[in-house]
């Protein structure tokens, strides 16, 4: 990756305890099972990738970790806290230790870039205005958008909006940063910038990063540990090299981007010719 030349070479980091643990989680929506016995652990201070084909519940998993939804069964633990059973005040206290980067940035559209980044500081602290200004400019400098401080969200490109959202997520110095599909719809330059920023956050600040994505190439560079989810369970876990040599058909299909395999090209349907002859849909 050409834009990573300033980054230190990826070094093995000491194994720590797990900041997130998910045990035997079952979750269904409208009778359709999303997870059926999902278990995984997110190590502290590492970059962990959650991968899987579209519709396997990657974003749902993030919503479970952040307490936006509750599992039907099983445990979701964030740094020793049983997330589904937290009261609102406790949940908000836990969320102040997390930052989340949404796929679309989710910037507040009635505020400019500066105010968006300042938002969590103004809501949660009584810092003097001069200090808030300095923190915001520092965060914007880190994502390369200090010069865009007075632009409105509508004036930003998709990549810029995500970088601003990242600056906002970093504003309160969280312990965990969750990235929901951070690379989707970005041009290669913007994608390279986001990859570089994720690594910087992890290396420089020791932040635990959870990256939900299906962009295999980017995650191969980034992630220390990867999980592949399919059929409501973890089907493979390990480093990218381990996943590449995995003997599972679905892992092979996903990692190599094969159009057909255990995840079929065709959505389940009746007989093609019979349907054509019947003249109905």
């Amino acid at each position, binding site marked *: 990756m050409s834009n990573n030349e300033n980054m230190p070479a990826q070094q093995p980091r000491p194994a720590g305890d797990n900041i997130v643990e998910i045990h035997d989680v079952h979750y269904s929506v409208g009778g359709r099972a999303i997870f059926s016995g999902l278990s995984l652990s997110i190590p502290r201070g590492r970059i962990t990738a959650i991968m899987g084909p579209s519709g396997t519940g990657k974003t749902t998993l993030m919503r479970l970790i952040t307490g*936006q939804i509750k599992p039907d069964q099983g445990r979701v633990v964030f740094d020793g806290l049983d997330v589904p059973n937290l009261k609102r005040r406790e949940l908000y*206290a836990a*969320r102040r230790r997390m930052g989340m980067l949404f796929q679309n940035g*989710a*910037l507040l*559209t009635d505020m400019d870039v500066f105010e968006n980044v300042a938002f969590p500081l103004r*809501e*949660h602290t009584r810092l003097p205005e001069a200090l808030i200004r300095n923190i915001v400019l520092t965060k914007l400098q880190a994502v390369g958008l200090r010069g865009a401080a007075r632009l409105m969200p509508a004036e930003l490109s998709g990549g810029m909006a995500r970088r601003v*959202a990242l600056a906002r997520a970093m504003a309160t110095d969280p312990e965990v940063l969750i990235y929901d599909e951070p690379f989707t719809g970005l041009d290669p330059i913007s994608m390279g910038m986001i990859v570089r920023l994720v690594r910087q956050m992890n290396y420089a600040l020791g932040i635990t990063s959870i990256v939900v994505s299906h962009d295999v190439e980017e995650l191969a560079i980034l992630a220390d540990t990867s999980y592949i989810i399919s059929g409501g369970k973890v089907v493979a876990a390990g480093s990218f090299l381990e996943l590449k040599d995995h003997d599972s058909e679905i892992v092979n299909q996903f990692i190599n981007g094969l159009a057909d395999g255990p995840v079929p090209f065709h959505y389940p349907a009746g007989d093609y010719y019979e349907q054509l002859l019947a003249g109905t849909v």
Partner: protein
Amino acid sequence: MSLVGELTDGLRGFVTAVGSVTVFLGRILGQTPRAFARPGLIIDQIYNAGALSLIIIMICGLFVGLVLALQSYQLLERFGSEDALGTGAALALLKELGPVVTALLFAGRAGTALASEIGLMRATDQLTAMEMMAVDPIRRVVTPRFIGGVVAMPLLAMIFIAIGIFGAAFEGVQLLSVDSASFWSQMRSAVDVKDVMEGLIKGCVFGAACSLIAVYEGFNAIPTAEGVGRATTRTVVISAVLTLILDYMLTAVMLATRS
């Protein structure tokens, strides 16, 4: 499905919706003291709901006053009571037309703006982002808008009434040659503080109802373009119907307590 089954389902849905709105109102009221700690947010919303609705309220108030005087004059002239035009116009505007028409206009202008704004915030994950930043959107987004509507609506109703009376005076005195002294003196002798209070109370109640419906529909909008559109439409329809139902109930109570 049988008619009984449909009615039962409809009734169950209605009770569920009323319960849901009541819980939502409880959450808003629970956050109200904290919302007052940041008056800037509330003032912004009073400006959005009130000041930005001012032009439409003034124009409509003027024309309602003009039409009211025109129609009333035709009726009063038959009985030789043209001098009572001012009293009739003032009482009609204070007790009914002012609060009700303002509420309908408020639902159409400010209510739809509130519902679509909050609905779009839902659809674009802005509310979820706030939740993730440990900021309660009920406190930060919904409550200031609700309070802004509750404060702005009675003020708008009073402005509507004042402009309406001015319109009725212009029509009656300037165009229909009703005696100016009779117009104003009869109005002053027949209208008392209780009549003004009735208009003010109705304005407050309608303001609370329309604002609540708007923020509820926006907050619970399905996060799609169609969902936000539907929430906006529902805001206008429910607010209009609720305003008329509440108007009847309030009028009945006020008349009973007066007599």
